[in-house]
């Protein structure tokens, strides 16, 4: 009762205070700071007061930071970076937690402690984001990571045994049956050596279908397979959906099979790769390919099942069709009926009709075949429309109402244009026409609309992932941040202003996906005390209160520790030089945000243990001495006192 009274008095107080402010105050601040009405409107659209939460969440790749960023929309506040391929001490990633998962990404036994994350993919059910898992590729070493969206932590890294680099991943099929990983730069499979003069014979492209086991939350390598492709530098991919479910589409940029060699007076790659007017869009029936794989019509290469090109031709799994040269995106429209391809060097977007593709396949409307015997569908038989949108079109996303949005790298703009067909009546403008271009700052790469690549796009917000920021922010030295610009796309026609600029000073994002926040159900504490996030189960060996101990076994020492505000138990841990130490630690807190760290000097150890989490670290106590360990996360008023001594007795 008293609380209710007190809070209603407080509410009255705030109301009175707010009433004392007026639009005059707003105007005087605007005048003082030089803000226009448009600026004030943008601020009103994006400002999220303290305590209120964002409507959408962006999962953005971190580029060569090797991480994934989680950002709120419309506030454009960075909520978290998720360590994936790169060690990251705040999360303890690689410094005591996640070491085994990072090691899954070792290549030939060698650690590769960074990644180049490009394309995150949220898991889908019936072609719509379900918010359960996130996949992201690593272009430099052709790896795919699985992130569990219950705790936003990386659970698995798979290294592709065939391709060295990847760019056509991660994309998921409509029910996340498979995670698609298209290779990029052609090499002999498994990075074997071959002279570049044998490029056409020995170098190959590939696309790998990683089977996802949703119950286990892991990619099942034993049910996964790959397809051999010509060495055309396959680029981005996308899975068909609804009417085109069962198919997938890949771009390629080096159908010339140029091999570079500027130092030998050969055309450099940038010229050689762009010589032909067209490259090849790859159209693959993955459901049929799955059946061919299950029928055993595969070769084992590097221990991995691969459908050979000749098998793919014989079984009718793959078709090519010309596409404007050096394309970047191939994006499937919400109903699955159109595939939109942007050739970087052509001012048009080219729209293919899946209906026409099916007819052309059925009628064998080929214009020929490539030198590997892959049938090429006649371009005119499969194209639906070409829309001139501007210079340097790269990627396309979709709105709910029949608009498509394409990023224009050279124009530094986002183009809004109308789809035709069944989408046509959603927009007041004629079908297949450019509606408006909003300048962005600068050199936009990908773009991401709210759920803009699903079967039911939300519209409302679109983010331009700009590569350069040039003059937009205070320059923090010569390495400038990227610029994520938020556009309001909730109105039709030419009304789609930029309403926020967010500098990204922690990586170089490529693609990002935007999901409605209420589709995500993350834990705020782990379900039970003693939870091992690496397995997402209760660890029976996890230390529990009153069971803390230091026990010696032969030449090893097992330590069982608990952490709670504001002490470790035990606080004295004495071992002998040369001991193999296995140290298990459990954060026994149940309060939200009561995270503890465990940092050991000179031993390169730092854990982040969230409430309930348990972790195990192993090291050889090779350096004798006295090492004060402590909690590295400011946890409580007596945080500085949360420490202990590791004493390593000299031999």
């Amino acid at each position, binding site marked *: 009762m008293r609380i209710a009274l007190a809070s209603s008095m407080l509410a009255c107080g705030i109301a009175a205070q707010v009433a004392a402010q007026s639009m005059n105050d707003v105007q005087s601040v605007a005048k003082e700071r030089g803000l226009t009405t448009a600026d004030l409107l943008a601020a009103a659209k994006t400002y999220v007061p303290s305590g209120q939460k964002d409507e959408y969440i962006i999962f953005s790749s971190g580029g060569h930071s090797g991480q994934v960023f989680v950002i709120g929309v419309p506030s454009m506040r960075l909520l978290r970076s998720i360590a994936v391929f790169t060690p990251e001490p705040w999360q303890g990633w690689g410094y005591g937690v996640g070491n085994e998962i990072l090691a899954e990404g070792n290549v030939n036994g060698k650690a590769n402690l960074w990644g180049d994350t490009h394309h995150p993919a949220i898991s889908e059910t019936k072609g719509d984001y379900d918010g359960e898992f996130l996949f992201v590729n690593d272009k430099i070493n052709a790896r795919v990571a699985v992130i569990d969206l219950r705790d936003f932590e990386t659970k698995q890294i798979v290294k592709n045994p065939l391709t060295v680099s990847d760019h056509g991943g991660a994309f998921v099929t409509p029910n996340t049956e498979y995670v698609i990983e298209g290779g990029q730069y052609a090499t002999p499979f498994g990075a074997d050596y071959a002279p570049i003069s044998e490029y056409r014979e020995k170098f190959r492209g590939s696309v790998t279908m990683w089977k996802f086991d949703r119950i286990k939350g892991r990619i099942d390598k034993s049910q996964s397979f790959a397809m051999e492709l010509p060495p055309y530098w396959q680029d981005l991919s996308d899975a068909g959906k609804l009417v085109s479910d069962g198919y997938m589409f890949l771009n390629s940029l080096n159908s010339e099979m140029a091999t570079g060699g500027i130092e030998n007076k050969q055309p450099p790659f940038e010229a050689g790769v762009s010589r032909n007017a067209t490259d090849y869009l790859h159209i693959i029936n993955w459901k049929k390919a799955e059946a061919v794989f299950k029928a055993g019509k595969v070769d084992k290469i590097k221990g991995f099942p691969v459908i050979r090109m000749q098998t793919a031709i014989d079984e009718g799994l793959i078709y090519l069709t010309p596409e404007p040269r050096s394309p970047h995106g191939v994006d499937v429209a919400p109903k699955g009926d159109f595939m939109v391809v942007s050739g970087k060097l052509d001012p048009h977007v080219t729209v293919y009709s899946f209906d026409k593709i099916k007819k052309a396949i059925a009628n064998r409307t080929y214009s020929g075949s490539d030198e590997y015997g892959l049938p090429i569908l006649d371009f005119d038989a499969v194209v639906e429309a070409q829309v001139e949108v501007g210079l340097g079109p790269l990627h396309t996303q979709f709105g709910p109402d029949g608009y498509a949005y394409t990023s224009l790298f050279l124009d530094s703009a986002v183009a809004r244009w109308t789809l035709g067909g069944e989408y046509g009546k959603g927009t007041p403008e004629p079908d297949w026409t450019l509606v408006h271009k909003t300048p962005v700052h600068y050199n936009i790469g990908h773009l991401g609309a709210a759920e803009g690549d699903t079967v039911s796009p939300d519209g409302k917000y679109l983010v331009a992932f700009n590569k350069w920021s040039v003059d937009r922010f205070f320059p923090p030295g010569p390495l400038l941040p990227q610029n994520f610009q938020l556009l309001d796309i909730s109105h039709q026609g030419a009304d789609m202003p930029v309403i926020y600029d967010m500098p990204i000073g922690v990586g170089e994002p490529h693609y990002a996906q935007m999901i409605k926040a209420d589709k995500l159900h993350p834990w705020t504490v782990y379900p039970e005390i003693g939870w091992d996030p690496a397995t997402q189960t209760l660890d029976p060996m996890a230390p529990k209160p009153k069971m803390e101990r230091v026990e010696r076994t032969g030449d090893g020492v097992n330590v069982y520790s608990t952490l709670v505000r504001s002490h470790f138990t035990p606080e004295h841990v004495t071992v002998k030089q040369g001991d193999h130490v296995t140290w298990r630690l459990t954060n026994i807190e149940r*309060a939200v945000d009561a995270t503890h760290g465990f940092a050991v000097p000179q031993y390169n150890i730092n854990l982040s243990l969230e409430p309930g989490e348990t972790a195990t670290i192993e090291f050889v106590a090779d350096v004798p001495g006295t090492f004060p360990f402590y909690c590295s996360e400011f946890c409580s008023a007596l945080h500085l006192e949360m420490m202990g001594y590791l004493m390593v007795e000299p031999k």
Partner: protein
Amino acid sequence: MVMSRIIGPRVAPGELSRHGLRYGAPGFLFLLARVLILVSLFLPYWHMALVAPQYPDNLHLTAHVNALSGDVAEIDGLNHYIGMRSLHEAAQIERRVGVYVLILFVVLLEIAAWIHNRWAALLALPAVTFPGVFLLDLHLWMSHFGQNLDPHAPLSSSIDPFVPPILGTGVVGQFKTVATPGIGLMLSAAASLVIIVALFFHRRAYRPLVIAARSD
């Protein structure tokens, strides 16, 4: 003979049918009180909210007759700083036997309804006093815990022994404590009132019979 002295005079069948309300009212009210008490067993008796800035949803403690629930682990964790013992160490016997004791009180009430002399009041007394005893017990445990802090605790020197009020608001450290009765306790208190009213009608109905029996 002894039995009839204990259970008091019986009502003649004719009298009972003529004055059904007079003799039925106390029995009905005893029944109502029994139902209230039995229902209260399933409902919280007491609630405390601990209000502090870093807990936007507050910390909560809820006491049933047989259980203490809510953010017990977190509150224990905070209390260790000031050297307070774990809340689960408090009132262990009371929580273990509370339900059986209340059922016993209900049985006593049942018997009381059949006894037509002053012994009925004695049998009803435990149920009448139960809400008060509950609060008194709670208070005694709170003062015991609040005033016997471990002198070696991290913050023992920065807090004086305290007794948070068992109803109403108090202050402990950065926490405001807000204690409120639960629905169970309210039902139990209502049962006490009902019993007192029942005893009034009981006396009005049966006292004349007792006096008459004595003068025989």
